[in-house]
């Protein structure tokens, strides 16, 4: 047994870290955050040249054939850098396409998705959706609303999950163009500064041949699970960076005649955070390793991962702000941006309690206690 990364994986992570620390340092990111679009296409292009969006696509489709570990490594780096570009979202959409889409759809879209000239993002964070897919001959009509869809304003394609007649959870996956007739996007900004939109669909035409990825509830759940993995890995990157920033602050902020980091009360708080991060680190890669494995084990592991990720995000987020004193609650400081990212990560893809309930239902169904 080993938890080591391959040489290629290490190279990928290193290259990404180097690229982001050079091209997406905090000052640059701040300008991007306050720009009109709220993300940098220039940075996206650089990342595309590095092969980031291609990583998730099959090598036979012009991609790099990466999987869950690569996804986690990339998301972790983008979380540390608080990227505003649609990286996690597009990785999830691309991997879903690579694994589940029929050949026609895949070969048509993969080259541009791999090159980064086309961006696809998912519109769902759980199988529960109010989007309905009604069949009419060789096409579906999609209607309903998807709320706060991350990165929707920069998407060319939406990976969409909908319920067919009689189903209460989503059982179909589509990839539809963002400019489809009948689709209205109302933009908003999330608490972490990332741009999003509410999508209102009214009888959007989705032909089976051009847009249907899968008609299978299990496929929808798998894609949701990829999304949870990406978000948890991003959270890992953000908490790791937050703790590094906090340790720096404790060493340099002087009160009572010396650095505040000399107070044991504060040292122990940092150690509490570090322990949480160790747990999340473990779970991210355990979940990544199990993503393509047995579905039931994958489901419980992903539910456990989100429980740990939510708890870690809240605990570490609140602690690092507190340890910065007043500076922690200012817009100016990087730490407050990590905090907001962690707040959003706690909400997105379902709360701790929702995932704890899912885990409980799988592992300890009521019948067993009888």
């Amino acid at each position, binding site marked *: 047994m080993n938890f080591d990364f391959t040489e290629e994986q290490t190279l990928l992570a290193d290259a990404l870290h180097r690229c982001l620390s050079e091209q997406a340092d905090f000052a640059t990111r701040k300008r991007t955050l306050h720009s009109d679009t709220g993300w940098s296409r220039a940075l996206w292009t650089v990342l595309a040249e590095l092969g980031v969006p291609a990583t998730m696509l099959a090598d036979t489709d012009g991609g790099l054939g990466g999987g869950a570990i690569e996804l986690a490594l990339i998301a972790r780096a983008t979380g540390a850098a608080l990227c505003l570009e649609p990286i996690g979202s597009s990785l999830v959409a691309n991997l879903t396409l690579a694994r589940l889409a029929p050949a026609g759809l895949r070969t048509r879209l993969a080259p541009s998705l791999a090159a980064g000239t086309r961006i696809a993002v998912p519109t769902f*964070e*759980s199988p*529960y959706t109010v989007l309905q897919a009604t069949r009419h001959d060789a096409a579906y009509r999609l209607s309903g609303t998807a*709320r*706060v869809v991350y990165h929707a304003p920069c998407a060319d394609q939406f990976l969409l999950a909908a319920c067919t007649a009689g189903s*209460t959870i989503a059982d179909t996956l589509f990839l539809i163009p963002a400019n489809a007739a009948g689709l209205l996007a*109302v*933009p*908003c*900004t*999330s*608490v972490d500064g990332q741009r*999003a*939109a*509410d999508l209102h669909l009214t009888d959007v035409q989705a032909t089976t041949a051009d847009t249907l990825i899968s008609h299978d509830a299990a496929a929808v759940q798998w894609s949701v699970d990829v999304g949870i993995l990406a978000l948890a890995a991003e959270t890992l990157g953000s908490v790791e960076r937050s703790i590094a920033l906090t340790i720096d602050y404790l060493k340099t902020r*002087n*009160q*009572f*005649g010396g650095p*505040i980091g000399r*107070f044991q*009360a*504060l040292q122990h708080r940092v150690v509490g955070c570090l322990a949480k991060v160790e747990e999340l680190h473990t779970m991210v890669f355990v979940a990544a390793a199990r993503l393509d494995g047995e579905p039931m084990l994958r489901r419980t592991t992903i539910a456990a991962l989100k429980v740990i990720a939510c708890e870690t995000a*809240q605990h570490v987020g*609140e602690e690092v*702000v*507190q340890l910065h*004193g*007043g500076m*922690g*609650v*200012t*817009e*100016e400081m990087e730490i*407050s941006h990590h*905090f*907001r990212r962690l*707040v*959003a990560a706690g*909400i*997105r893809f379902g*709360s701790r*309690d*929702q995932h*704890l*309930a899912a885990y409980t239902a799988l592992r300890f169904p009521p019948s067993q206690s009888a």
Partner: protein
Amino acid sequence: MNIELAPEDLAFRDHIRAFVAEQLPAAMAQRLLNGGKIEPSDIRTWQGILYKAGLGAIYWPAAFGGQDAAPVRQYLFELECALAGAPPQLSFGVRMLAPVLMRFGTTEQQRTFLPSILTGETWWCQGYSEPGAGSDLASLRTAAVLDGDHYVINGQKCWNTLGQYADWIFCLVRTDFTVKAQRGISLVLIDMKTPGITVRPTVLLDGTPEVNDIYFDNVRVPVSQRVGAENEGWTIAKFLLVHERTNIAGVPWSKRDFARLLGIAQAATRDGRPLMEDASFRAKLARLEIDLEVLEHTNLRMLSAAKPDMTTPSILKIRGSEVRQAISALTMEALGRQALPLVVGPGDAALTEDALTRGVTASYLNLRKLSIFGGSNEIQRNIVAQSMIGL
């Protein structure tokens, strides 16, 4: 022992309740109960209404326009106001400076400054903290050098809450650099219009400029605006800490926030089902209500005690901030994904107008401050540990 309110206190509470129902502007109350931002004009308007009714500061001595109200009554007053949707009173004048002036100020200072605090006409801000003097307040360095009958003040204050609206600031300044830090500090009152003062807002993580940096560049302040003796500032600041404890736990605000949480939870759904059908969520609500109940009665136990003790206020500050922060976190959780949008793009009037979600996430972010300011929770723990263990 009788833990119930005395009949006179109940009558007092009913009187306040009726007064607030009649006098608090309905539109303001509606907005504030639904998460709207508290505007300076709300605070001024409400203080004016309270003043006209003789309720401007009920716990002040009658001689200064108060009613000599006991701490429990002050609590009841604040609770009724908070639950009905009133804005808070501006504590800097009414709560912080006024008791200091009554105790340490000259008759002239009392005559000059107290009336306009009571009417709400003068907006005060607090100038204690400095970039290098946060928890270690005594290390403050803003210098006040005597020049005839004036002090010449140079330095920088920071974190001045709502200082951009302030007419006056009360400042701790260093009047002696040669003695032990605590012994060289004085309290001075400064007109914000005095030449040499620059105010620069600091944007907080919820996007609002709630605090300010204030720079003093050769600001001349008459010696007559010093409160108490020269170098007595630290003693005065400590006096204030001991006296500023009626509302240290913030129970009225937590109760108001809890009521909003309940409203939101009752309207919320999770995975297509009413949130209140979820047993684990209901258990969290219950647990939080227990915390609130404990907090309220611990607060009342302290307020009604004949002899103040030194550690309870610190513990109430810690628990009060934790409970209020936990309420804000659970409120955000109850909203689920609806809590994500912080700023809503043009065109989505529905979300911005939504009374259910307004301000919930911003408030969670903003209330992180509760465990940081007014003596951080770590400093409060140090105070208790020092007093109880003392090693």
